[in-house]
């Protein structure tokens, strides 16, 4: 049975298939790149030199901050105003990339950052701006809990739902709302990160 919106109701006959780009939940083509980045990160930590550690921490941190801010405050509201087919097409193209990108960026930033802090002595409690460093731990902790508890599961679940022959719009709506709100929270936390990191960098 087709509703006035041209939507199939449960138990109705099969509909004309919605245009959904074919996608992999975890894009396998990106795995070698992730492996390469991780290998370089391990090497940077093992050699414990300033430049590679600084490089990974700054590049990873900048990417993490910019992606969170852009997703939470620019893309999120835009996605919310898109038509359903446009949203679905956008989601199927964006979210698989996020599955690989975000865990990689976060791991690189945190692992290199901790090693850099150890190298420079900024994680020591005797460091003059230790309070700011602890504040950064707390901000990262909040972001980690939100990202791991809400963002990542919602990301995967949306993609699994979209892989189904007949995705459920209620499920996608609920998960995408969760994803966008969680991205907004991490975006706000990233503003705090910017304040802390610029303070630490300027002394």
């Amino acid at each position: 049975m087709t509703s006035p919106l041209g939507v199939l109701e449960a138990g109705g006959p099969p509909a004309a298939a919605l245009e959904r780009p074919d996608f992999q939940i975890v894009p396998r083509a990106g795995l070698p790149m992730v492996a390469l980045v991780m290998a370089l990160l391990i090497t940077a930590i093992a050699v414990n030199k300033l430049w590679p550690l600084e490089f990974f921490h700054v590049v990873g941190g900048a990417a993490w901050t910019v992606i969170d801010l852009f997703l939470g405050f620019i893309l999120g509201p835009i996605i919310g105003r898109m038509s359903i087919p446009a949203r679905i097409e956008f989601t199927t193209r964006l979210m698989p990339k996020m599955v690989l990108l975000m865990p990689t960026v976060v791991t690189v930033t945190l692992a290199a950052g901790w090693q850099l802090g150890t190298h420079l002595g900024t994680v020591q409690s005797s460091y003059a701006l230790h309070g700011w460093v602890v504040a950064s731990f707390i901000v990262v902790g909040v972001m980690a809990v939100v990202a791991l508890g809400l963002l990542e599961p919602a990301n995967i679940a949306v993609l699994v739902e979209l892989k189904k022959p007949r995705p459920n719009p209620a499920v996608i709506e609920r998960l995408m709302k969760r994803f966008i709100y969680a991205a907004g929270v991490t975006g706000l936390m990233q503003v705090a990160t910017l304040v802390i990191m610029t303070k630490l960098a300027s002394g």
Partner: protein
Amino acid sequence: MSEPAPGIVAERDPADAVSLPPVTQVGMASLALIVAAGIYLSAHLPKHVPLTPAVVLLAASALLLAGNLAALARVTGFAWQRFLQVARWALLAYAFIAGMIEYVFLRNHTSGGPLVVLTLALVVFAVHVPVLIGFTVARYADGS
């Protein structure tokens, strides 16, 4: 999304069909506890601090993980096959991430009690995140 698109089945949320325990909320509380334990330990470096607060936080986090799994095990009609399908791959990914963090601790000569607490915290992290991902996917699986 306010209106379904052509070709998408308009039906009620399958998650509403089965009464589910608050796995996500409990999981986030568990993660918050181990994060707090990690912050407590790392904020006092290189001083030796009493491990008791970190151990208490870790134990509470592990209890929440056990409680989450026990509560989930009692749900009838839960899509365990889908849960395991997703959770095992997530476990592989998060075990690798936990391994990376452990490597950094070892590289910096963390040892003794703090290393044990941090390692166990990473174990809870590496298990609980896949549980949350698997749960979120499985709760919307068909037939759940």
